[in-house]
C-alpha cells in the first residue's frame, strides 16, 4: 500500500465515524426532544396519523397516476418548446430580430404571470370562448398552460447553458464548414445541456409538483385528493402521504441523474 492509500483509508474510516455519530446525535435530538414539547401529541395526530395515512394512501396513489400522465405528456413538449424558445432568443442574425423579440416577450410574460392565472385563463378562458366537448377539456387546456409556463423557465435555463459554452468552440466548429444549425446541435448544445442538467432537474421536480395546479380547474390529482381528505378529516396527514409519494419518485430520480453526471465527468478526465 502506498502512503496515499494508507492515508485515504484512515480518512475514510474517520469520516464514516463522524457521519455516524452526527446522524445519531441529530436523530436522538429529534426523537427525544420534539415529543417532549407540550403540543407534540396534537401535532402528531394532525400530521403523522397512522390510521389516517393507511386509510387515504391507496386513493392518493390512484390520484397520483393522473399526475404522472399529465407529467409524461407535458415534459417532452416543454423540453422541445423551451429549447426552441431558447434558440430563438439567441438568434444572432438581424433578420431574426422579430423572432428574438417575440421569444423574449414569451419568456417574460409566461414567467411573470403566476402559473395559476395562466391555468385559469387558458383552462377556463379558452374553452369559455365556445369550444364544444371534448375540445374544452381542462386536461388539454390546463396542460397547455403548464407547458407554456414551464417552457419559459426551461428556455431561460437552456439559454444560460448556451451562453456558458466558450465562443471559441463556435469558431472552431464554424471553421470546419458546419452550418450554424449543425454547430448548435453537435457542438454547442451537447455542452450546454450538460452544464444545465442540475437546473433542469430542478425544473422537472418543480413541474412534477406544479401538475397539481391543474386541480384548480377540475382534474382531481393527488394534491386535490389530499386536500379533499384534509378537509373531510381535518387532518394534514394525507399531505404527508402525498409528500412520501413525491419523494419516492423524485429522490431516486435526482440521485440517478447525479450519478450519471458524475460518471460522465469521470469518463472525461
Amino acid at each position, binding site marked *: 500500500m502506498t502512503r496515499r492509500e494508507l492515508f485515504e483509508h484512515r480518512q475514510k474510516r474517520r469520516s464514516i465515524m463522524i457521519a455516524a455519530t452526527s446522524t445519531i446525535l441529530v436523530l436522538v435530538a429529534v426523537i427525544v426532544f420534539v415529543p417532549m414539547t407540550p403540543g407534540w401529541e396534537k401535532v402528531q395526530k*394532525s400530521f403523522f396519523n397512522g390510521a389516517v395515512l393507511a386509510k387515504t394512501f391507496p386513493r392518493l396513489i390512484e390520484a397520483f397516476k393522473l399526475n404522472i400522465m399529465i407529467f409524461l405528456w407535458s415534459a417532452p413538449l416543454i423540453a422541445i418548446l423551451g429549447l426552441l424558445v431558447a434558440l430563438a432568443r439567441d438568434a444572432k442574425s438581424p433578420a431574426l430580430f422579430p423572432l428574438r423579440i417575440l421569444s423574449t416577450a414569451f419568456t417574460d410574460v409566461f414567467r411573470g404571470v403566476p402559473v395559476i392565472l395562466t391555468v385559469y385563463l387558458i383552462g*377556463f378562458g379558452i*374553452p*369559455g370562448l*365556445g*369550444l364544444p366537448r371534448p375540445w374544452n377539456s381542462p386536461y388539454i387546456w390546463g396542460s397547455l398552460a403548464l407547458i407554456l409556463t414551464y417552457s419559459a423557465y426551461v428556455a431561460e435555463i437552456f439559454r444560460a447553458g448556451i451562453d456558458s459554452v466558450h465562443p471559441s468552440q463556435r469558431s472552431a466548429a464554424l471553421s470546419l464548414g458546419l452550418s450554424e444549425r449543425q454547430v448548435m446541435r453537435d457542438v454547442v448544445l451537447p455542452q450546454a445541456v450538460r452544464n444545465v442538467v442540475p437546473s433542469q432537474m430542478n425544473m422537472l421536480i418543480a413541474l412534477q409538483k406544479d401538475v397539481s395546479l391543474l386541480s384548480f*380547474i377540475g382534474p382531481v390529482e393527488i394534491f386535490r385528493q389530499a386536500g379533499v381528505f*384534509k378537509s373531510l378529516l*381535518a387532518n*394534514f396527514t394525507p399531505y404527508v402521504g402525498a409528500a412520501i409519494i413525491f419523494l419516492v419518485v423524485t429522490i431516486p430520480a435526482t440521485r440517478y441523474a447525479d450519478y450519471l453526471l458524475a460518471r460522465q465527468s469521470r469518463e472525461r478526465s
Partner: protein
Amino acid sequence: HCAAGKTLTDGKLTIATGNPAYFPWVLDDAPESGNGFEAAVAYAVAAEMGFSEADVVWVRSSFDEAIQPGAKNFDFNLQQYSITPERDEVVDFSAPYFTAPMAVLVGPGAVDTPATMAALKGLKWGASGSHTSVQKLMNDIQPTSDPLLYGDNADINAAIGANQIDAALFDLPTALFLSAVMIEGSKVIGQFASDESQGGDQFGMLFEDGNALKECVDDALAAMTSNGTLAAIEATWMQDTTGVPLIQ
C-alpha cells in the same frame, strides 16, 4: 313537464356539490344517500320536478368551476352558495332554500370572551377566504388587527390549534358542527341576527347564467316551502340553534 328538455341530459338531473361535501349539509361526503340537509333538499326538489331518485346524477365541482364562463357540467350546484348581487351578475341563483345566520367560533384560549361587538373587535380573527363571512368580518366587526384568511375550514381548525387565531366566523350550522366534533375546547359564543345581514347568508342553488331550469327549481322550492317539506327537512337535519346567544 317543466324541466323537460332543459336539463343537461334528457331525463336526468345533474346536481353538483362540493368536493368534499361537509356535515351537516351532506353526511359522510355521500350525497347519493340523501342524508344531510342539502342532499335531502336536492332529492326533494328533484322529486318535485318529476325526477325519480335514480334519475339524479351527482357530480363534484369547485367554486371556480361553478363560476367559469362557458358550458357547465351540471344543471345546478348547491354547496351553501350565498346569494349576492355581484355573483348574480355572472351566474343565476334559485330562490333561497336556507337562511343561515353567521356565528362566532372561538378557540380554547378565548372561550370567556363576552358576546359583544366591542369584545370581538380585539380578538385575532380568521375566516375562510372564499366565504362571504370575510365581508361581514371586515364591514361589521372591523377587528383591530388584520384577520388571517384560509382556504378551508380544516386550515382554520389547524390555525386555532396552533393558537395563531382566537376566533373565526362561520355560518351557524357549520360553526356548531366544528365546535362539537372538530375543534377541541372551542365554543360558539354567539350568532348575529339573521335579518341584520343584508342577504349575505341566504343560500341559493347556482345555475349557469340564463339557464331555463331556474324557473322550474324556483317553482319547486316555492311548492316545498308552502307545503312544509322544506321546514321538515330542516328540522330533520339541522341542530336546534336557539341556545346560541345573539351578539350585542
